């Protein structure tokens, strides 16, 4: 689908006309993220700038709306593999020279692939922001994907897979995905499998780049001690020549409905049990996402959360507990994780079930809701001191439906009521239908 968008549209006008309609709420004038500027190049590249003049560093952060959920059938891990190759060489910069250029000025570069998106970031002293933008654009536009580099990097990814297998927490997450999101593109691990990585070659990389690394599928965020006009001008210079292209269609993914409890249990060389209980949840842009975020805080974040009090203070059945919502584009995950002695598992699951039922049947108290909102506010305020945090937050929200969701984050959470939380819990936190992953100490 092609959208015709005006050149260099001033952000506020753009946001008010589009996003406020979507959100049905005004722009939060008190947002600590304001002011920001956003322009859209004729080819569809969205450029967001947050000037932070108080400290001399800058973060250059490109988001591409492609992730593991877009991995072709039989090529699980392709999006992540691609991300590994992006700094492996261009015609003007052989392998290693991009990192060298950035590290020479004290900066660093890195990248991350998730189920939904891939993001590339460079953080530098701000006088080198132009250099960082140029290096990043060179990597994203001109990477060679040489077969020798692909073969070399494949072995590196094999080692990364082994590291994930050896860490009990990452192992649990990967173990649960296929049971939480069966028959969806979210069921496959981001990192891929040994078998399917073997099928990736130069042509797959070139095709993937051509399909998804197109300006209308990308967002450039720059945050820090920069001049917005200079950033927009350089963005035009670097990316303006990229042609817009139709992006492969993606089917909408509905939130899976689980019918029963699925228990996955493995013995492992660990000192205590690790559990993760997963509940399929709505996407990041759904109104219930904010309600579930609040539910996570009330249920399992901090020493006065319900599960902490019940499972640690009252009965001391677990050694750690947390609950949190994670949103993706179409669907999400509400997860409850704990470390415990294996003999306590049944009682722990029983108490978690009781707390979920309580969340579904009784409104949370004013004090609990107020606490959750205060924590969200302060957490955002503290996080905003870092240009990389700001860039990441703005970029992720833009990918997930609009940067105004970042600006309005606090206002969105402030609007959540106890009824919203109860309704979201009733809809998504079924005490009798979830996936339980359990890594149990050997012989216990």
């Amino acid at each position: 689908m092609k959208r015709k968008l005006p050149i260099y549209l001033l952000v506020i006008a753009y946001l008010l006309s589009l996003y406020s309609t979507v959100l049905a709420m005004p722009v939060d004038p008190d947002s600590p993220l304001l002011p920001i500027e956003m322009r859209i190049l004729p080819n569809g590249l969205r450029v967001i700038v947050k000037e932070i003049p108080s400290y001399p560093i800058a973060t250059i952060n490109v988001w591409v709306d492609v992730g593991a959920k877009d991995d072709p059938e039989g090529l699980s891990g392709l999006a992540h593999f691609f991300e590994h190759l992006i700094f492996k060489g261009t015609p003007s910069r052989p392998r290693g020279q991009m990192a060298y250029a950035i590290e020479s000025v004290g900066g660093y570069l890195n990248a991350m692939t998730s189920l939904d998106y891939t993001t590339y970031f460079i953080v530098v002293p701000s006088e080198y922001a132009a250099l960082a933008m140029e290096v990043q654009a060179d990597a994203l536009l001109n990477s060679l994907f040489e077969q020798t580099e692909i073969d070399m990097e494949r072995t590196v990814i094999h080692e990364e897979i082994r590291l994930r297998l050896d860490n009990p927490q990452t192992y649990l997450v990967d173990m649960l995905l296929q049971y939480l999101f069966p028959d969806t593109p979210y069921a496959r691990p981001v990192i891929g499998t040994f078998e399917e990585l073997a099928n990736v070659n130069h042509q797959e990389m070139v095709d993937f780049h051509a399909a998804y690394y197109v300006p209308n599928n990308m967002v450039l965020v720059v945050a820090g001690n920069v001049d917005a006009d200079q950033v927009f001008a350089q963005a035009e210079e670097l990316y303006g020549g990229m042609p817009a292209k139709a992006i492969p269609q993606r089917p909408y993914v509905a939130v899976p409905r689980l019918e029963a409890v699925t228990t996955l249990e493995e013995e492992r060389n660990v000192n205590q049990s690790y559990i993760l209980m997963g509940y399929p949840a709505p996407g990041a842009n759904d109104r219930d996402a904010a309600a579930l975020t609040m539910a996570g805080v009330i249920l399992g974040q901090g020493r006065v959360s319900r599960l902490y009090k019940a499972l640690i203070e009252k009965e001391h059945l677990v050694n750690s507990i947390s609950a949190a919502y994670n949103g993706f584009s179409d669907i999400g995950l509400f997860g409850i994780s704990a470390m415990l002695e294996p003999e306590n598992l049944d009682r722990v699951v029983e108490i978690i079930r009781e707390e979920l039922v309580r969340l579904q049947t009784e409104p949370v108290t004013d004090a609990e809701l107020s606490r959750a909102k205060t924590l969200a506010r302060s957490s955002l305020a503290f996080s905003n001191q870092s240009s990389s945090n700001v860039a990441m937050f703005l970029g992720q929200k833009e990918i997930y439906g609009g940067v105004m969701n970042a600006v309005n984050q606090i206002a969105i959470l402030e609007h959540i009521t106890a009824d919203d939380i109860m309704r979201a819990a009733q809809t998504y936190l079924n005490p009798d239908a979830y996936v339980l992953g359990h890594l149990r100490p050997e012989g216990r």
Partner: protein
Amino acid sequence: MKKHFYHVVFVLCLTFVLALPLHAAAAEFNYTADVEKVVLDNGLTILLKENPAYDIIAMSVLTKGGSVRDPEGLEGLTFLTVRNLFSGTTNRTGEDIVVELESLGVQLQATASYDYSAVLLQAVPAAFEEALAVLLDMIENSTFPVEEFERERSLGFAALQSLYDDPSNALILEFLSFFYGEHPYRYSPYGSPEGLMAIQPDHAASWNRYLFQPDQVVVSLVGSFDKEELLAVLRESFGRWENSFTGTPEPRSEAEFTYPAEDRQMVFNLPTEAAFLIIGYPAPNTFAADAAAMAVINTVLGEGMSSRLFTEIRDKRGLAYTAVSIYDERMGPSSLLTFLATHPQNVEQAREQVLVEVRRFAEEGLSQEEIAWVAAQKRGSYLLNNETNLTQSVLLGVTELIGFGYGWVDQYMDFWDNVTPEDVKAAAQKYFQNYTEVLITP
């Protein structure tokens, strides 16, 4: 080969052109120009730096009491003491403390490190004074109630155990234990299982007085405040502290450490997928004249994607996902360690490559140009690492605490300029004689 050379020349020219500063913001940035230092009558030091950029006040209460001073047999005492600051006071229950702090939107954490400990607070200005009152109550009036103490002990014990469930963490813990032998640095700040079990609430109550002896404490604040107004509050709050430590339990005195003149190896066979390898060497401590040279070596060896370990082991050979070095610089005996995770079949090749790269420093040293590259890199990364009010308050406070003086924070920007190729070679030859290796492999 020739083509590659031209590529490099072109890239370096391009880098140079693009790297010309548009303005000199970073070079001009100064962390300490507006810092005010006040030493109270009781010996407690206060540092204040106004930063109106964010509506946040960050405060670090730093004490010279680190886990290395944990009494013999009570390893983990500093950790358990600061952890139990949240358990209750004569005025507040543990729940009161948490509820009050959270309702103020305050972040407060207490941590134990090897050479010092810290209570770190972030608050919006409107909430700061109330948060300060809670924090002072926690330090001055903690009661270390038995039930909460037992719970925190149990949680701490479990946290220590859980570190061993991840082979990367287990490797580091085993390395420290092996490398340091009988020196107390062998324990993590969590302590030892035996030490944690031996600690009683009375020990913690007394140790709390040890940790917060006013002349051993630096309080460092950066944020949105008026210096004079805040100083009056701080004088009143911290000025009443007195030294009430009785001397019991006895802090561990400075321990001797002699690094053995031989290579040492230890292997743990565990059911892992990857093999995890640390090769470590002794290294200069924070105060040593050759600490800067060792930091330069570490950057070239294993910091970042253009380091030698990354390029030689990961980029060129695909042997590992993680290939880094860490200069574990402490106030006492220190180490430089290389860490990598690789396929079990590749351990020999990876090990040999690490040893080759380390030997290069002793044999070839580094050129002045390479050292200059590191200096530029260090200046930039220093800026990147000290962006927030909290990190700046810790940075200023720690340099003051360890005796460098907070002014060193800006001098550090030029710390590397005086390192010479001879310094690098001499440091490598002095320290890279014998290594300690720990391997976890299936």
